[in-house]
């Protein structure tokens, strides 16, 4: 075991872990700033611009504030679960990054069912929300937690079914192979991305992805106008920050999966000297994720929240039949060709 820990393979793996984990954590912190600035831009107000140039030091100030805040526990709360819930939502959110390939070589683990592994990990994320709401022993959090569990169960179905078409075309469950299956172009200029073959699957995936991450217009679990802040009403300080970071991490995961499955992952034009060629795949992949994050934030800034019955109606009667029909049509076409 000691031999393995000092071997070259392990050191490379360890360096990759540090790069990916550090990069993701830094990106999450700055995603909060991006969202606040972008929403402020849409709503024609300045947004946080006081801490550092353009407010660039705001995430660090926020982090320090979260760290030094008083740790409060509501009376009659279930203390063990109250402390465990933020951790339970943080761990799955970060664990999915262990199998996401950020480039041909920049990935921690490469297993042949990595896509399903991510679905399995993210499906455990709901416990953080549910237990946080229940352990607070307070009315608004409980309402938020119950809405969230019903919502995530409903939308997880369409989310999982929407990617079956892509999987049938690529004939693999590995994220690396999925990206490799989308290399090259049609007619020399259209990239071979699955979004052109699976437009319905892509739309269903993206809409259920918004609902899975509890974002507007589907953030019924949080809905600050009626439930104060939903399941994390009673949380403050670092525990609240963990819920917050978990939500952003889930957003990045959903965006990364969308980029891998529908937009060709790290595929993109290659040019320049060798060091640029090394970095370009990761740059393409990260810019695709950033495009999705922009859409997420613009959707939040522009579209009002829908009602709870509309949410359930939309999930079960629109998205699920669409996803099923997509599977049916795709399997016919795949079988004929």
């Amino acid at each position, binding site marked *: *075991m000691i031999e*393995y820990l000092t071997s070259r393979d392990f050191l490379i793996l360890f360096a990759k872990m540090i790069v990916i984990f550090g990069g993701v954590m830094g990106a999450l912190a700055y995603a909060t700033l991006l969202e606040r600035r972008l929403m402020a831009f849409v709503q024609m107000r300045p947004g946080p611009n006081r801490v550092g140039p353009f407010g660039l030091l705001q995430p660090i100030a926020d982090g320090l504030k979260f760290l030094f805040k008083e740790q409060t526990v509501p009376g009659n709360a279930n203390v063990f679960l109250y402390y465990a819930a933020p951790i339970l939502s943080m761990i799955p959110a970060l664990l999915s990054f262990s199998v996401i390939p950020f480039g041909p070589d920049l990935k921690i683990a490469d*297993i*042949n*069912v990595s896509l*399903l*592994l991510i*679905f*399995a*990990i993210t*499906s*455990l994320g*709901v*416990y953080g929300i*549910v*237990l946080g*709401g*229940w352990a607070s022993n307070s009315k608004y959090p*409980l309402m938020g*937690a*119950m809405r969230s*569990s*019903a919502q*995530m*169960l409903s939308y*997880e179905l369409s989310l*999982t079914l929407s990617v079956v078409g892509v999987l049938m075309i690529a004939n693999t*469950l590995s994220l690396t192979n999925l990206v490799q299956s989308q290399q090259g172009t049609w007619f020399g200029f259209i990239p071979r991305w699955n979004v052109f073959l699976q437009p319905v699957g892509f739309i269903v995936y993206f809409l259920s992805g918004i609902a899975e991450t509890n974002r507007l217009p589907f953030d019924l679990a949080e809905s600050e106008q009626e439930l104060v802040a939903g399941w994390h009403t009673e949380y403050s300080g670092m525990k609240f920050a963990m819920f917050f970071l978990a939500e952003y991490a889930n957003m990045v995961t959903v965006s990364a999966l969308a980029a891998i499955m529908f937009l060709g992952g790290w595929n993109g034009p290659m040019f320049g000297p060798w060091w640029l060629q090394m970095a370009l795949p990761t740059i393409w992949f990260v810019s695709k994720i950033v495009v999705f994050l922009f859409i997420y934030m613009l959707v939040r800034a522009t579209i009002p929240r829908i009602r709870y019955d509309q949410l359930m109606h939309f999930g079960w009667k629109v998205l699920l039949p669409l996803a099923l029909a997509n599977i049916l049509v795709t399997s016919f076409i795949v079988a004929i060709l």
Partner: protein
Amino acid sequence: MIELLFLLFAAVAVGSAINVLVQKHVLYSSLSLIVLLTAISALFILLQAEFLAVINVIVYAGAIMVLFVFVIMLLNLPADEDGADRLRWLKLIGIPMGLFLLLMVARTVWRVEGTAAAPDLAGTPQAIGASLFTDYLLPFELTSLLILIALMGAVVFAKKEL
């Protein structure tokens, strides 16, 4: 390394399984059950059956147990205090049944000679799909029929007048 991990996850699985039984509050029992399912998935991964491991987590830990926890929260069930009395007869039956199970396990362990290495492709989705739609087609279709009946039953219960 593998043996260490096996011992670790086996210990977690057995510990959480016992915890499911001894906990008085039903929510803690179901949380232990989630830990148990995850530990069993880890054991599947050690046997190189990644697909089974992942499906186990998606279906049981990620969907069915969420429903359990949801219902427990919705009804806000109190801690079970006088449940022991109702189970008196079941306890008496449980002792011989447990002994029988122990006997069967011992017999299986006794019969296995050496440790057969699992074939490389046994745990892949392709292999599972192929055997599901050839050798085990009838059980598979019967199971789907069973699930369909359960679905229809749920609809009938939910809507008294169709």
